[in-house]
């Protein structure tokens, strides 16, 4: 039997527009893009020019500091643009698909006979290593490191999150091969949810499986690490998304780079929230066309409501995104006397609102911050939704004051910005906690590396 870890602190936000377990077929997008910003703290060096022909698996850019780290085209076609922003920072490399989805050919291999270095080399060559992240710092992993373990969370507990079992259907073999490949590098820990019944998860081989019970953030890999074996100073742990494990499996089973994902379109402003097969980096327009409500001004989010980035219909699916969420930008632009009005339709964790009376009700929440930024006033707000053995408030204060020693002592090596997303949601002082944590991690990394 697998070990069961129960998490009590946390919060499930009941939002309208959860994706139903159905596949909606959408037309394949014409344009695909890879955005360097998705690969945290990688300085890109673009290795293609517009009009270059590429296949899926051909590098579009490499890491300047470590050129063997390649970031590859998700589709075959030709490069149409290298978009740059301020100070010539690369924003995206756009590829126009030729509709054939041809991949660079690799040899199918029996992963269990490979060595750690061979697996790493194959992943680097195919551009799949780019999806490996590391704790501490929550940045793209360095292939020359030896991690203590590799953690894979097979479920997403965020509001309106995708159900990984739907993506897993038909890809069970590739998923297991991917886990086998990772297990050649380091011990693999698979975190699954008590609600998951798929045998590919329950009897996954060459991994240590742990079952997590409880509200979000039980599915966050950071929480799973903290609850099984927290990261100590000097240790490195790698993490990778469950669907990316399937990509790895495909590489070794079929000898191909195939970035087809099962992406959910969700949110209160979507007419029929459901799943679709989409290739990574696809332009969002084909996915959302004709499927959005037009009552309100919309916010299209690349990813989840808690951690995703605001984008637009002509934007692209992020490299790590498994869903597109659409919510209203502003529901009521003349929300009068918000501090005193009962505001029955509003969702809040505070009993000064009335949402505690309707635990089953599903809410439409818009993108308003609904208050001004203040210094930290209330105590124990973060702790209630932060299940790690860390004092979040004190860690945040250490980061704000730039106190490196304190950050280390209080456990910054164990966290990523996404772990603070719920704290940021409930915060009555409306502090930008994820940004603060990101800056703290960057500062620490600059000092330590």
């Amino acid at each position, binding site marked *: 039997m697998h070990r069961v870890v129960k998490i009590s602190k946390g919060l499930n936000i009941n939002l309208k527009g959860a994706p139903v377990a159905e596949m909606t077929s959408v037309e394949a997008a014409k344009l695909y893009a890879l955005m360097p910003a998705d690969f945290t703290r990688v300085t890109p060096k673009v290795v293609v020019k517009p009009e270059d022909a590429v296949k899926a698996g051909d590098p579009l850019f490499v890491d300047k500091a470590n050129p063997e780290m390649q970031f590859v085209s998700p589709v075959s076609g030709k490069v149409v643009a290298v978009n740059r922003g301020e100070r010539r920072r690369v924003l995206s490399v756009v590829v126009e698909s030729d509709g054939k989805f041809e991949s660079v050919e690799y040899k199918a291999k029996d992963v269990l006979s490979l060595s750690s270095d061979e697996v790493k080399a194959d992943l680097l060559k195919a551009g799949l290593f780019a999806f490996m992240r590391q704790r501490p710092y929550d940045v793209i992993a360095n292939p020359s490191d030896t991690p203590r373990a590799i953690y894979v969370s097979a479920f997403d507990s965020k509001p309106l999150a995708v159900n990984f079992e739907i993506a897993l259907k038909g890809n069970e073999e590739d998923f297991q091969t991917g886990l086998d490949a990772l297990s050649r590098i380091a011990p693999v820990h698979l975190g699954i949810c008590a609600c998951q019944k798929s045998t590919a998860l329950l009897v996954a081989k060459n991994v240590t499986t742990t079952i997590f019970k409880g509200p979000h953030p039980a599915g966050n890999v950071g929480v799973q690490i903290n609850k099984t074996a927290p990261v100590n100073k000097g240790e490195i742990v790698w993490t990778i998304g469950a669907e990316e494990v399937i990509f790895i499996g495909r590489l070794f089973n079929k000898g191909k780079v195939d970035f087809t994902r099962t992406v959910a379109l969700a949110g209160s402003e979507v007419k029929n929230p459901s799943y679709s097969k989409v290739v990574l980096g696809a332009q969002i327009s084909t996915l959302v066309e004709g499927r959005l409500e037009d009552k309100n001004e919309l916010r299209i989010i690349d990813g989840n409501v808690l951690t995703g980035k*605001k984008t637009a219909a002509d934007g692209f699916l992020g490299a790590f995104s498994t869903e597109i969420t659409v919510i209203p930008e502003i529901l009521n632009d003349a929300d009068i006397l918000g*501090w*005193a009005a009962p505001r029955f339709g509003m*969702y809040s964790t505070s009993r000064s609102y009335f949402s505690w009376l309707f635990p089953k009700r599903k809410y439409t929440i818009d993108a308003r911050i609904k208050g001004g*930024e203040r210094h930290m*006033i209330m105590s124990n707000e973060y702790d209630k939704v932060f299940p790690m053995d860390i004092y979040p408030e004190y860690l945040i204060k250490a980061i704000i004051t730039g106190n490196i020693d304190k950050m280390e002592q209080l456990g910054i090596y164990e966290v990523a910005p996404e772990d603070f997303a719920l704290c*940021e949601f409930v915060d009555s002082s409306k502090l930008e906690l994820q940004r603060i944590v990101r800056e703290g991690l960057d500062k620490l990394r600059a000092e330590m590396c």
Partner: protein
Amino acid sequence: MKFLRNYIDKIKPNFEEGGKLHAFRSLFDGFETFLFVPNDTAKSGVNIHDAIDSKRIMSLVVIALMPAMLVGMYNIGLQNAIAAGTVETTTWFSMFLYGLLVMLPKIAVSYIVGLGIEFTVAQWKNEEIHEGFLVSGILIPMIVPVGCPLWILALATAFAVIFAKEVFGGTGMNIVNVALIARAFIFFAYPSVISGDTVWVATESICGLGATVDGYTCATALQHVANGVAPVGAAGAELGVCDMLFGFMPGSIGETSVVAIALGAILLLWTGVASWKTMLSVFVGGVVMLFVFGDKLPESIPFWHHLLLGGFCFGAVFMATDPVTSARTEVGKYIYGFGIGAMTILIRVLNPGYPEGMMLAILLMNVTAPFIDYCVVQSNVNARAKRLTKKN
């Protein structure tokens, strides 16, 4: 409400950088966000936010203070009538109205002085106005005797807002409770208006309401106890438990009615604005200390009356639980609360100079709270360090 929103949007440019009314930006900003929830949307991080904000939290505390405030007003009129010997002929409503008239100038002075400083600082630092003073501003008039002159109240408020809050960086950064610093300022700078036996009952008639009583004196219950006699009310009759519960006795305006304070406590605890851990621990600390001092306690009242008299309940419910100045860790809250309750009784029993100990106990624990938290957090730090050495 659209027209109001449109009107505000129309006049807004005047207050922005370069506008002719830019000097009043913080004031405009304060009123705009008071009227309408700001329409700023998330730029980084989470795309959705909980509907709670500090405005709503602060308003809740003000609402929770209302029962104690209203009873306090009635009690002002009642004590005046008792002193004048006109209880039989005065209606409860005119007593209340008299109390209201006595209180209004105090509330106005506290808010005008405090908010004036807050708006100026917000303008100067180019920040949004913070709501913290909404609570402090109503607390200050409630924790002084009715006889405290307005100019002293103004001075104390200004001192507290500037030196207890703004110099530290504003709401959320202060170390000690702002309202209590105002009271402590009066206590040490003008002791005659906050102690003794001439300030606890209103003796001036206002607009034909109430009665003017010359040379009237009456001390608070705790002063009587400190003097070794049984506490008596304004008319010289002994105080019963009923008087103590409902607050019909001389004392600081808001602190006398235990029942009214309990109503506020229920609201604060139910909405989670105040921590039950702190509140409960204050009472536990008080009770434990009362047992410790069992034989040293004045014999003029049963020992448990200490919890009903003076500022014990008011302090436990509204002052000790101030999230900014209280301990912020959950374990720390127990220690912090216990310290307040215990220290209050300690001061009351061992120091005949201070019949009331709540204010000093809370201020003392405010200063200690960061150390308590440090110890609690340090145990987490040590555990983490131990994990590391164990591994190596």
